[in-house]
Each structure stands twice: as C-alpha cells, then as structure tokens.
C-alpha cells in the first residue's frame, strides 16, 4: 500500500465514520456553492433576461438616412442582416409626410408604418379599438381624435400634395449617373413613376418606367414599348411630346421631342412630364392624391405619437407615389457596448444609413444592469465569506474535538506537514463534494429564480461546474488555515498526561 492510498484511506475514514460534524461543514460549503453557482448563473443571464424586459421601453436604435440619399427598406434589411435573429426584437419602418384633411382645411403628420413591427418595437402603444388590418384603415392619435371628434369607425378623407419639398423627387445636385426619379399623373389621375439616369453631359443614359398604375394593355405599354423608351436615350431635358404644347414653353428651348405610344397619349404625356420633373421638380404642378380612410383605433401613448395619423406603408405609398422611408426604429436585445459596436459597423457599411442609439433607453438599461450585477456580486462575496466563517468554525471545533488524536499522531511521529496536509485534504475533499452538490443545486436555484422572476428558463453553463468546485475547494482550503494552525500547535505530550 502506498502512502497516498493510506492518506486517502485515513481521510475518507475520518469523513465517513465521523459523519455529523463533517455533514455540517459539507452543508455549509454546499449552501455557499449553491448560492455562488446560482447567482453567477443569474449574473450572466441577467443581461439577457433584463434586456428582454427593457425592450418594452421601445426601440433602442434608430436608422436615419445619411446625406441626400433616401432610406429604403432594402437598406434597413441590409442592416438587419447584421443583427443575430435571437437579439432582434423588432424593426419598424416609418415614413412621415404632411397630410391634409380637405374637409377641415387642416394638416396633420401622417405616418406610414408596419403595424406588426410596431407591436414589437413600441409595446407601450395603447390602442382603443384595433390596429389597422385592412387597406385604407388608419390609427389616429388621441390628440387629433379629440380635436376633430374622430371615433373608431369614423371615415375621413385625407389628401397628399406632391410638392418640391416632399422629398420624393430627385435633385439636380445628384451625382452623375445617379438614379433620378419623378412621377406624374397619368390616365385617370393614377400616378406613373419613372426613374432615369444622366450621363456627364446631362443626357439621359437610361430610363425605367413604372406604368403599372395605367390601364393594362393600353397606358401600361409606355413602360414596355422599347421603341418608345429608346427615344429618350441621349436626349437632354426638358422634353416634349410631339404634337403638344410644351409645358416649359417660354422658359427655354425644347431639346427633344418624343412620339407618344399610339392609343396611350395621356400615359405617354405622363412619362414625359415625370421625366421633366426629375430635374425640375420646383416647377412641377403639384399632384394631389385623395383617399377615404376608416379609423380603426385611437392611439394613446402620452407622447407626440398622439398627434400623428398612422397607416400602412402601402396606403401611404399610394398617396405619395413612392416607397421611401424616413426612419426605422430597431429594438435589439443586446448590451449597450454590443450596440455601440453594431453602430460603428453599420456606419462602416457606407450604404447611406446613419445609426443612432436611443441613449435614454440604452443608458438607463446599462446603468440598471450594472447596479443589478454589482448587487449580485456583493451578495456572492458575502455568501462566500459567511461560508468561510462557517466552515472555519466547524473545522475549529473538529480540531479541538480531535486534540488527542492529533497529539497521538504527533507522538507517533507525524510531522507538522503531515498534520497540515491531512486536515487540508479533508477540507478540500469536503470543498470538492460540497462544490459538486452546490453546482447542481445552484442550477436548480437559478432556474427557479429565473422562471419565477423573469418567466423564462436558462441553459446550464458547463463551465460553471468545474469553476464552482474549484472555488469551493479554495474556500474550504482558506477556511482550514486557522484550524490547521491550531492543530499543528498541539503538544504531543498531552497523550501522556492521564485523563
């Protein structure tokens, strides 16, 4: 038999045959380790858990167009691809325009959005009635509703006037080769859209016409008739439809004549008008679109949202004739430093999107998390200290209980080192066993806390098992230091002096 085996045999015999005292020490360590591993589990899970809670305060990042280029859903989508699915709570696009209410000669801010996303990024929206579900349904801010006496089910007419400053037309300062877009009223007042690009001599180098709003097979041909479209290439603005009076008459020479598609003169005229407008929007005749809407719900938030009229992007797009966005609100469940990193990578993408963190949300989130984590840390330290005191006291009692045995061992020739390693061995064994128990119980504890407090379960962290065991052993070893000193100081002669 080796000395090591004998050492283990003595230690296990001591632990197994002198149970009651050891159970107390074991229990102390197990309880300490339970709290330790439980709190550490929660500590690392809190940001995730609390992040989800914080998301009820709304979006924490907004995307804005940078410079002159407008924001589009494609760009937002590019950004969203950078956010892990598990962290993205919601992404809501917004388009704000001025809407008129012809019956009352009043204007309001109209907002186009995606209501399924609104529910995710603005959970604090309180709607009396329902969110718009069908086309031509609107959500009216409480303030507006009260001012003009709207109720759920009311019907109102809203109109949108396309003007130079409404942001949907191209500007002359745009880069060469850049896509310019414009629109004009075609057949039956339906909006027809074109986009062109100009070469360095300001001649049209390409043209695309969206004529889907025009009469199929007749007016819609202006978008597909290649011979018609080819006439535009190489010409400078403004253009004129042959056989008609120039819109621009008196303001300059016509530089190009375009032959209309036969049977679609109005649509052809609309294409020419739209092309002209791409660069001469300031001269454009305002296009006004009107539609009737039904109020599906009244929105109250306590904020500025109460003075807006919300509708789907599709409905708003029909009024404005474009699909641009002004802002996208993102709700991302991630710590603030991760959000900062995300912001800089979005900026680095250089796709004309400027990210902004909603500081009042991200900051308060970070500060609450910081405080919570500090609290958990403090409690863990206190619990470890208490464990240490408890184990130390127990071991102290064990030493005085075993005074005679220690004296005997020394009389039999045990060196101080032997005595030290025997007690340390027992302590570490208790620490290891207690740590193992604590790691398992701690996970159960964290799970119970998580389910009761945050309403979601947490995953087991495999790394926590060895960490808990090692920390427990270290705590046990530290707790044994004072008792060991006592044990080493025992005089072997006590075994000789009678009872």
């Amino acid at each position, binding site marked *: 038999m080796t*000395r090591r085996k*004998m050492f283990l045999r003595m230690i296990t*015999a001591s632990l197994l*045959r*002198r149970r009651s005292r050891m159970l107390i020490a074991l229990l102390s360590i197990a309880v300490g380790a339970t709290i330790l591993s439980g709190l550490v589990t929660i500590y690392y899970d809190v940001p995730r858990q609390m992040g989800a809670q914080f998301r009820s305060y709304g979006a924490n990042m907004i995307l804005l167009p940078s410079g002159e280029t407008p924001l589009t859903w494609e760009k937002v989508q590019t950004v969203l691809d950078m956010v892990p699915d598990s962290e993205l709570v919601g992404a809501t696009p917004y388009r704000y325009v001025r809407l008129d209410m012809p019956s009352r000669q009043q204007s309001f801010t109209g907002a186009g959005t995606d209501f399924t996303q609104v529910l995710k990024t603005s959970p604090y929206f309180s709607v009396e009635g329902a969110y718009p579900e069908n086309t031509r349904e609107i959500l009216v801010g409480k303030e507006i509703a009260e001012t003009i006496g709207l109720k759920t089910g009311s019907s109102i007419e809203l109109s949108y006037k396309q003007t130079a400053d409404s942001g949907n037309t191209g500007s002359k300062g745009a880069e060469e080769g850049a896509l310019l877009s414009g629109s004009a009223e075609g057949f039956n007042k339906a909006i027809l859209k074109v986009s062109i690009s100009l070469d360095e001599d300001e001649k049209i180098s390409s043209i695309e016409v969206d004529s889907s709003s025009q009469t199929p097979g007749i007016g819609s041909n202006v978008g597909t008739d290649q011979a018609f479209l080819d006439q535009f290439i190489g010409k400078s603005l403004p253009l004129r439809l042959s056989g008609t009076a120039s819109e621009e008459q008196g303001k300059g020479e016509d530089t190009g004549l375009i032959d209309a598609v036969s049977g679609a003169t109005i649509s052809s005229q609309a294409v020419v008008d739209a092309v002209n407008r791409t660069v001469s929007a300031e001269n454009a005749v305002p296009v006004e679109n009107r539609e009737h809407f039904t109020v599906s719900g009244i929105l109250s938030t306590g904020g500025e949202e109460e003075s807006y009229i919300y509708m789907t992007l599709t409905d708003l797009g029909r009024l404005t004739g474009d699909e641009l966005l002004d802002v996208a609100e993102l709700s991302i469940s991630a710590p603030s430093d991760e959000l900062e990193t995300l912001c800089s990578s979005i900026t680095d993408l250089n796709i004309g999107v400027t990210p902004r963190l909603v500081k009042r949300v991200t900051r308060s989130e970070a500060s609450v998390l910081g405080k919570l984590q500090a609290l958990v840390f403090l409690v863990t330290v206190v619990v470890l200290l208490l464990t240490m005191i408890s184990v130390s006291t127990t071991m102290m009692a064990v030493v005085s209980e075993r005074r005679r045995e220690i004296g005997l061992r020394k009389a*039999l*020739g045990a060196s101080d080192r032997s005595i030290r390693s025997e007690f340390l061995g027992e302590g570490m064994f208790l620490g290891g066993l207690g740590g193992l128990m604590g790691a398992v119980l701690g996970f159960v504890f964290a799970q119970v806390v998580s389910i009761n407090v945050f309403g979601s379960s947490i995953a087991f962290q495999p790394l926590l098992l060895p960490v808990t065991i090692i920390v427990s052993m270290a705590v046990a070893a530290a707790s044994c230091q004072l008792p060991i000193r006592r044990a080493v100081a025992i005089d072997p002669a006590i*075994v*000789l002096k009678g009872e």
Partner: protein
Amino acid sequence: MALLELKNVSKIYGDLKALNDVSIRVEKGEWVAIMGPSGSGKSTMMNIIGCMDKPSLGEVLLDGVDISKEPQKKLTDIRRDKIGLIFQQFHMVTYLTAVENVMVSQYYHSMPDEEEALEALERVGLRERAKHLPSQLSGGEQQRVCVARALINHPELILADEPTGNLDETNENIVLDLFRQLHNEGTTLIVVTHDPEVAEAAQRTIVLEHGRVAREIINENFGK
C-alpha cells in the same frame, strides 16, 4: 553500550524542580521500570525520554545523540525512528480500524504495509479483530493493538507509560508476556509504573522521589 543516558538532568518550572539533577543509564536490551508516587517526576522524565520535552539543564544521550540540544522538528524524527510509545489510555484513532491504527504508525515512519500490520496484530493475538473499530474492542484488546503499533517499526526503545494502569489482571499478564517476548528479542524497554508487580517484571527498577533518583533495585528473580 548505553542506549540512553541522562546526565545531571533538571527540569525546572518556575520554583518547582520537577527533575533535580537526575543521572541514569539504560543499556541496550535492558528492561527498566521507573517507579514513584505522583509528583515524583515520572511524567517529566517520560516526556524528556520520549523526545516530547527538553530538560532545563543536563544532557540526554539517546543512541549517542544529545537530544537536549536538538530542535523540535528533529526530535519528532528521532521519536519516530527510535521510539515506540505505549500509553495508559491506549489512544487509538477512533475512526480507524485496529489494523489501520497500526498502519498509521507505519505511514508516519515509512510505508504502510497491511500484511505486516496484520502480522503484528497476530503477534498480540488480535488478527481476527483487525477490522474492528476501537469502540468495538475491549480495553485489553485496545492496549494490545497499541503494543502492536509500538513494535511495528522495530524501534530501539519501547517507552510505556502505565501500560497496565487501565487493565484487568488477565490483560495485564498478556501485556507483560508481550514485553517479555520483546525483551528476549533484544528490544530495550522502559516502563513507567506505580504498580510493584509490573515493576518486578523488569530487570531493574529506578525509584524517583521529589524529582530525584531515590534508589535503584535490581530484580534478583528476573528470568526465573
């Protein structure tokens, strides 16, 4: 040659001279009893011989080494290597079995060897009780385990402190018989006792009184 020699040894606690200028010699292989009433200095002498205490004055030569000058750590080594101890209260490790208690002594000395430990128990007639805990053994059996433990490392000197003080006559005789065997094998025995019968079993008795050697008695009947 003397295994143990005390030269003018005194142990002074304040005003009290527990040992006062004591000189004794114990030859290798000798069996000596130390007697005396309570307070005569027996325990003090035992502590000094057992390397658990140092004299205030004088020299203690154990196997040629002056142990009164050695540091505490060295004394532990000397005790472990040269001395087998037997106590009045037996003193076993309560949570270890008989054989494990014997092995503890091996463990501190060199290498635990269960077979050898069992042989030692066989010698004291307790092989079949090897797996019993001290609480399951009688006082006599416990003391026999202690004898086995004391002799397991083949010490030069067996130092026994009232070895039969807590035993009945039957067990006392068993222990004394064991001592006789050890003596015949050449082991040096020093037995501290106040029991004249135990003292008479030895070759020579040193009587202490008030910290001094009062007289020495040679046992004429030894070996007869």
